[in-house]
């Protein structure tokens, strides 16, 4: 992921290619993934449209932007993929964005590639990561699936996009950790709060599995995937929050009560200003994480935790405020607000809560702080 698209690039400055990419994805979403489409897919069994997904991978080619060309990807950087994640988040693109694009693909890239990777990038197959995490970090102690004789047994709960064609599964082979590619397993789909982001519980009973890494290699790939996943999830959160801010500002500027636009009341205006600050902070931290992972310019764990701690809180707050500032209409099923509210709550709970990431930040920043002794406390 050290390569970048176009200009080697100052952090936060999007290259013309990246700006084109954003425009192209936004236009595709406007035309092909408008809200009626999202609502139709959200009510469907699969929860997404495989043909549409294949177009995103094939025609548009935006499902593996940070995958090196020799592994079947676009050979770009993570920032490119973050731009796409933001636009997907703004449109609430249904489908295995988190499972495939943000987790499975990065895991396989970290492994140096795999035979299933090109199909995931092309969108002809979907993937998901069936790995237990503790506050967004991989914890081998939580792995309960076991391997024996090339087959897996056990259960993985609440796997995001767990109905995918290909599962990347952490399992225990004796005392060793193994990382496996699995196509089988019994998938029980769950009724999720956010019907545009599906989950399943996966049960393996002597399900055939192909080992792709073990021990430290497996752990490294999983950790890399969770980091990239956290950064891309943050970008998605930015996209959703920004869309809600735009929606709310437009409503506040046109909705009249007491003979004037409600946005002319400070109670409304100032809440919009606070939403703006949240969105701007979210954007800064999410793209910092993407740039830091791409260019190696910051501690990756710290950068991702800053982004996740900030974006999870920002998106949830902005979504709640969006309902509030729309009044009754914002509480109806017909209005867009709840679709984003449910996504915001879901994103905040996945890959580590804000509190879990703050704890990680505390470990990295506070536990290493040393008293330099110059700050004076008055003692009377």
């Amino acid at each position, binding site marked *: 992921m050290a390569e970048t698209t176009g200009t080697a690039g100052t952090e936060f400055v999007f290259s013309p290619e990246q700006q084109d990419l954003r425009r192209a994805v936004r236009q595709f979403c406007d035309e092909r993934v408008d809200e009626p489409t999202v609502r139709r897919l959200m009510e469907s069994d699969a929860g997404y449209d495989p043909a549409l997904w294949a177009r995103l991978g094939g025609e548009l080619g935006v499902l593996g932007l940070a995958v090196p060309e020799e592994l079947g990807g676009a050979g770009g950087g993570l920032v490119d993929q973050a731009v796409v994640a933001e636009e997907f988040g703004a449109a609430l693109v249904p489908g295995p964005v988190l499972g495939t694009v943000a987790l499975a693909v990065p895991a396989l890239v970290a492994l140096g590639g795999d035979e299933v990777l090109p199909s995931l990038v092309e969108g002809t197959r979907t993937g998901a990561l069936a790995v237990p995490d503790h506050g967004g970090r991989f914890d081998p102690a939580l792995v309960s699936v076991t391997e024996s004789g090339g087959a897996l047994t056990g259960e993985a709960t*609440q796997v995001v996009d767990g109905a995918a064609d290909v599962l990347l599964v952490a399992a225990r082979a004796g005392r060793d950790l193994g990382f496996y590619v699995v196509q089988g397993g019994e998938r029980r789909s769950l009724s999720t709060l956010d019907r545009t982001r599906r989950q399943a519980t996966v049960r393996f009973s002597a399900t055939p599995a192909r080992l792709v890494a073990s021990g430290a290699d497996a752990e490294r790939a999983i950790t890399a995937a969770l980091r990239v996943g956290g950064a891309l999830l943050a970008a998605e959160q930015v996209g959703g929050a920004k869309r809600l801010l735009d929606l709310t500002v437009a409503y506040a500027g046109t909705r009249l*009560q007491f003979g004037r636009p409600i946005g002319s009341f400070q*109670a409304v205006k100032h809440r919009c200003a606070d939403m703006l600050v949240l969105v701007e902070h979210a954007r800064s931290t999410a793209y910092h994480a993407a740039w830091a992972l791409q260019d190696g310019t910051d501690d990756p764990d710290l950068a991702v935790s800053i982004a996740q701690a900030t974006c999870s809180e920002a998106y949830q707050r902005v979504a709640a405020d969006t309902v509030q500032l729309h009044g009754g209409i914002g509480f109806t099923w017909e209005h867009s607000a709840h679709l984003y509210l449910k996504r915001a709550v879901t994103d905040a709970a996945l890959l580590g809560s804000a509190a879990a990431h703050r704890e990680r930040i505390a470990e990295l920043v506070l536990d290493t702080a040393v008293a330099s002794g110059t700050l004076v406390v008055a003692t009377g």
Partner: protein
Amino acid sequence: MDDSARVEKAAQQVVETHDPRSVSTREFLGACFDAGLAWVHFPEGLGGLGVSRGLQAKADAILQGAGAPNPFFLNPIGHGMAAPTVLEHGSPELARELLRPLATTEHIWCQLFSEPGAGSDLAGLATSAVLDGDDWVVNGQKVWTSLAHRARYGLLLARSDPDQPKHRGLTYFVLDMRAPGVETRPLRQITGQAEFNEVYLNDARIPDTHRLGAVGNGWRVAMTTLMNERSAIGGSSSVRGAGAIADAVQLWAQRPDRRTPVLRDKLAALWTRAEAQRLTDERARRSASTGSPGPEGSIAKLVSAELNQDVYEFCMELLGPEATLYGDYSLRDIQRHEDYRGPVQQRFLRSRANTIEGGTSEVLRNILGERILGLPGDLRADAGKAWKEIPRG
């Protein structure tokens, strides 16, 4: 015999002659009405005994102690808001006609105030009422109408004179929900349920005898309804740790695996805020009963709404990844009371409306600032203008 003893005796007689565990709800509540125990402060013959409102608690304790249903839960708008409004502003004949079936829950009531274009700015509503002979002909759309699909009557606020400033052109009616031209549609909310309705009024006719208060005086009548709504909220029963906070404490007890010191402090803070508000409600009740009402009552709605949201946000945080699951979004009518609030995730979603329904938190802060603290009003764009000249949208 003093008033207190009168109430006590009447209540004891009712439960002796009508065992609430064996007679039907309607029969029992009819007996209560006839005994003057529906609203003890109402006049005799209209469901009351003409005694102090404070004595209602004594009657309710005896009745409910014997297993009586709470009529407020069965017909909340009828019992809490329609009855005092009909009594205060309706003709004696109308009160006699409407109050008993209301009290027995034979007639469920609903309230037709809010409109798509009139939320916080209720007085800006557009539903028109035009006099045609002895009837009013009503056209418009109402929204957020709980119980409309089950209601026999609706409290309707409509515009009878668009040339007047907005507060002065309103008239208040009792609408027969079964009249031609009244169409009720369920309004699905973000929980997936349809707790509310939209009501479309197309040339619906209301006899002038079902008008409450004078023509053009509807806003003052509506104030009676709304003040009773607010006091119904502020006057709810007051048990430490009850309400939304009980859910959070229970979830805390159920999920030792999810506890952290930070969440512990957060929950203690929420519990303390709930308790501070409960004590404030209690204080408001006490000072009201001694004739010196303080500012405490109006605070209840604001605080409890925001507290509910914070409590269920806490619950979702406590749940962690499980918070991302949901039961059933299929559109359902809410019938069974026990099912009403649903699982935690549903309660979380439902709580988002708490700061909107019954007065947004923004409007309530204005009320606290202006009516309690006496701060000056907002500058007004619509002051003194004829309603029809005020921009809407």
